C-alpha cells in the first residue's frame, strides 16, 4: 500500500473515531510545515499526515499529566506503539485512556529506517486499531555486522572517532520517547564532566547506552536528531539483541512483560537524588 492511500484510510478511521475522543494526537501539515497537533474537529483531518515522524510518547505523557481523565486518540507507528508500551510499564502513560490508531509502515519506509519491526504489535494494549499491510523487516544496519567483525582495537578506533564529534546537545536524550527522568545521569557531574566538548571518556554515550538497554524501542529518533551523525542506534541495537538473548525480553512488544533489569537502584519512576 502506498503512503497516500494509507493516509486516506487513516483519515477515514480518524473521522469515525474523533467524536468519541477528547482529542486525537497526530501530525498536522499546514503551509508552514508539519508537526504534532491535537485534532478536535473532523474538518481539520484533511491536514492529518503520517510523515515526518515525530516522537509522540513524550507528548502523550505531557497531555495525560495535564488531562488525566481525557480520552485521547493517538496516531502511532509500530515504534511509537512500542514506546508507549514501555512508558506504560513505567507508569508514565495510562493505556486504558489511550485509543491508538496504529499504522504499519510501508516497505519503503521500513527500508529507509532499516526497521526490524515495522508492523505494530498490539499485544496487551486495551484499545487499538491496526491499519495498513505488514511490511517485511528491513536489512540490519551494515555497521551492526561490521562491528561484530572488527577486533577490539578497531572498534575502539571507530567509536572513539564517532564520539569525538559529539557536541553534547543532549538531543539524543531530549528526543527519546523513553527518557523522562527529572534528574538525568548525563547531567550529573559525578558521571559526566560538565562543559567539555566532546565529552572526554565516553561515559556520556556508554551511560546512555546502558540506560537504553532494556528500553530502546528502535525508533531511531536519537540518531536522526544527532548533529554529529553518530550511529547511536547501532550500539543500542547490539544491547537490545543481548537483552533479547539473555533474558528473552523485547522492549515494547508486550504490555504485560516486565523489564528484566533496572539500571540503578533508584528506579526509573523516581527521580535520581541530587548528589
Amino acid at each position, binding site marked *: 500500500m502506498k503512503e497516500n492511500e494509507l493516509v486516506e484510510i487513516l483519515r477515514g478511521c480518524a473521522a469515525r473515531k474523533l467524536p468519541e475522543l477528547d482529542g486525537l494526537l497526530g501530525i498536522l501539515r499546514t503551509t508552514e510545515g508539519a508537526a504534532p497537533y491535537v485534532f478536535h474537529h473532523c474538518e481539520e483531518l484533511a491536514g492529518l499526515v503520517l510523515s515526518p515522524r515525530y516522537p509522540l510518547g*513524550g507528548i502523550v505523557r505531557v497531555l495525560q499529566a495535564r488531562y488525566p481523565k481525557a480520552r485521547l486518540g493517538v496516531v502511532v507507528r509500530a515504534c511509537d506503539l512500542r514506546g508507549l508500551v514501555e512508558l506504560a510499564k513505567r507508569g508514565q502513560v495510562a493505556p486504558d485512556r489511550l485509543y491508538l490508531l496504529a499504522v504499519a509502515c510501508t516497505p519503503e519506509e521500513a527500508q529507509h529506517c532499516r526497521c526490524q519491526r515495522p508492523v505494530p504489535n498490539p499485544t496487551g494494549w486495551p484499545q487499538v486499531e491496526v491499519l495498513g499491510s505488514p511490511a517485511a523487516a528491513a536489512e540490519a544496519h551494515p555497521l551492526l555486522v561490521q562491528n561484530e567483525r572488527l577486533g577490539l582495537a578497531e572498534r575502539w578506533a571507530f567509536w572513539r572517532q564517532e564520539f569525538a564529534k559529539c557536541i553534547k546537545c543532549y538531543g539524543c536524550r531530549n528526543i527519546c520517547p523513553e527518557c523522562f527522568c527529572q534528574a538525568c545521569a548525563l547531567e550529573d557531574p559525578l558521571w559526566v564532566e560538565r562543559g567539555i566538548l566532546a565529552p572526554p571518556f565516553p561515559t556520556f554515550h556508554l551511560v546512555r547506552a546502558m540506560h537504553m538497554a532494556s528500553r530502546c524501542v528502535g525508533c531511531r529518533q536519537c540518531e536522526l536528531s544527532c548533529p554529529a*551523525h553518530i550511529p547511536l542506534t547501532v550500539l543500542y541495537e547490539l544491547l537490545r539483541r543481548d537483552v533479547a538473548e539473555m533474558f528473552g525480553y523485547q522492549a515494547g512488544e508486550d504490555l504485560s512483560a516486565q523489564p528484566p533489569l533496572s539500571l540503578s537502584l533508584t528506579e526509573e519512576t523516581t527521580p535520581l537524588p541530587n548528589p
Partner: protein
Amino acid sequence: MDYRNILTVCPYCGAGCGLYLQMLDGEMVGVLPAKEHPVSQGKLCIKGWNAAAFLRHPDRLPRPLIRQGERFQEASWEEALRLVAEQFRRISSRYGPEALGFLASAKCTNEENYLMQKLARAGFKTNNVDHCARLCHAPTVAGLAAAFGSGAMTNSTPEFSQHTRCFLITGSNTTEGHPLIASHILKAKQQGAKLIVIDPRQVQIGRLADIYLCPQPGTDVAWLNGLMYVIITEGLADQQFIQTRTEGFDQLWEVVQQYPPDRVAQITGIPAAQLQTAARMYAQNKPAAIIYAMGITQHTTGTDNVKCIANLAMLTGNLGIAGAGVNPLRGQNNVQGACDMGALPNVYPAYQPVSAPEVKAKLEAAWQVEGLPEQIGLTVVEMIHAAGQGNLRAMYIMAENPLLSDPDIHDARQCLEQLEFLVVQDIFLSETAQLADVVLPGAAWAEKDGTFTATDRRIQRVRKALPPPGEAKADWEIICLLAQRLGLRGFDFAGPAQIMEEVARLAPSYGGVSYERLDREGFLQWPVPSPDHPGTPYLHKEKFTRGLGRFLPVHFQEAAELPDEEYPFILTTGRSIFQFHTGTMTRRSPKLEQEAPEPYIEIHPEDASRLGLKMPGKVRVISRRGQIELTTRFTEQIRPGVVFIPFHYAEAAANALTQAALDPVAKIPEYKVCAVRVEPIGQS
C-alpha cells in the same frame, strides 16, 4: 486540550535553525526540532534545545523604568516615552542631529532594525546608526564588497553536505559557534570530503580534520599568501576562471611571490611542508568552501584577511558554483538581516550608499521627508568614543550590551557615563541598561512576529507564541509609539508584515519578500528582487555583482599589540557552545549555565607548569587596560604562548583586557590578539 506547535527560528547563532515551540493551552511546554528544515534537518544544539528557557525568567523586565538618582522607578509607557521624546528632541535641537546615536540589534527582527535606522535617518536626520556587526563581520562586508561587489556569504549551508568536496576552515570554532553548520560539514566528511583547519586553537573541528595547521595568532595574511604562492607556483590555479572572471591577477602575483613557504613558516610557525599539503588539498578538491568567522575578522588587519580569503577562492575558481565559495559565518541570529536593513552608518537598506544622490532622493520620496543626511555616520566604537569626548550627547540602544561586548570595557563605561541621556531597550536589565536613564522593556524572540535573515542570506519567519511579560512590548511597536509621539509620519504600521512590505519596496534585494511567500515557501534567500524570483542559493553564478572579481593583494602586517617581556602571552577570545555572547540569555537558562557556569582561561600545560599553575586553580590575567581573575583549564589544544578566554562572563570580562585598536577600514577592534600576563593567585 489545545496542543499545537509553532514554527520559528532559533534566537542564538546565525545558522538559522528551525524549531517548533510546543504549546499546550497557550503555555509553552517544550521545544521540538523542525524535521523538514533545510538547515537544521530535525537537529538542534544545546542552545537551540534550551532556546525558550529564559523567556519566563523572573529577571524579565515587565514595565518601563525611569532613573531616579541611583535607582530605577517603574513607570508607565506614557511617562517613559514622553521623557524619551522630550530629551531626544531637546538634545537634537540644541546640539544638532550628530549628537544622537542609535544602536540597532542583531538580536531583533529585520522589521525592527529597519524601523530603527528609519527613526535615526528620517526622524532625526543622522546616520549615526550601527550595531554589533561592527564587532564581528564589518571586515567581511568591506572586504568582500570590494572583491566581489557583495559582502555576504556566497553559498548556502545545505550545499556543504550536498556538494562540497573540501573545506578550509579558519578562525571558526564551527562545532561550538555554529553547531548545525558543522553538522553539514561532518556529514560531508563522512561522505569523503576533505577537511583542513587552520587555527591557533585546535578546536573540536580541528581535531577531526585531515590537516590541522596551527599559526601564530595575527599572521593570517602571511599563511593565506603562502597558500596562494604554492597554488600558483605548482600550476594549480584555475587559469580559465582567472582570465574570464577576474581582474588584477598580475598585481596579486607581485605580492604573493614574496611569500614562499619558508618565509611563511618563519612568520606563522606553520611548517612549509604542511602548508604545501594544505594548498594542494584545497586546490585539487573542487568545489572547495572556505569557512571563516571572528578569528579572521577581529583583527586590525581584518579587512586584509578577508581580501586574502577572497583572492584564494578566486584563484582556484571556487566561486559561482554550488558547495564552494567564501563563507563568513555570521554570529547572531539576525546580524545578516540587521546589516541588510541598513543598520549601518554608511548604507540604507540593501547596502544602498547614503552618499548616493539618487538613493537619497528615492528614500526622501518614499519616507516623505526632506534633507536625509549624506554624510556617513559613526560606528559603534566611534560613537562610544564620541560620547566620552562630549560630541555625542544621547544614545538609544536597542537590545545590545556594549558594556560587555565592546573592547576595553572600562573605557567604554566611562564614555557612556558622559552621556546626557541614555535609553536602553532590552528584555533584561543588562550591564548597559543599568547605566540608562530610561529602560524600555522589549519582547523576546518568541513573543513577536517578524523575520530573521540567517548567515546564508536566508530570510525566515519568526512567529509569536507567547505574549511578552507584563506590559513589555515588541520592539517594533515601541519604536512606532515613540515615533508617533515625536510626531513623525510613516510609523503607523499595523504589524511586521506591513513593515516588510515597505522594506520590499525600498530594498532591491528584498523586493520579492512577503510574509505570504515566506509562510508558503518557508524561506527566501536574497537577492530575491521580485515576487516571481525564486531567490539565490549561491552568489556570483555567471558574473560577480561588481562584474569582474577583483584580486586585492595585501602584505602581512603585525598585530597592533604583540607580547613582550612584561606581557608575554597572546590573549585570544571566543565562544563556548554552552554560552552566548554577553550571557544575558544563556546565563539565565539553567541547563546551559550548569555546563559552563564560571569563566576560565585555557593555557598550554607547558606554560602552566612554567608558571607553577594548578588545575583547577585561580589566576589573575593582566593587560595594559585591566585585569580579571578566573579558573585555569589546561589544554594541549592551544599553542604555548597563547591563552584563550571566553568572553561571556561579566564577572571576569575578557573585554576588560582587550584593546580598542581598530581595523582602519572596517573599524573592528582587535579582539583576537592582545598581550597579557598571567599570575597564579591563592597558591602557596
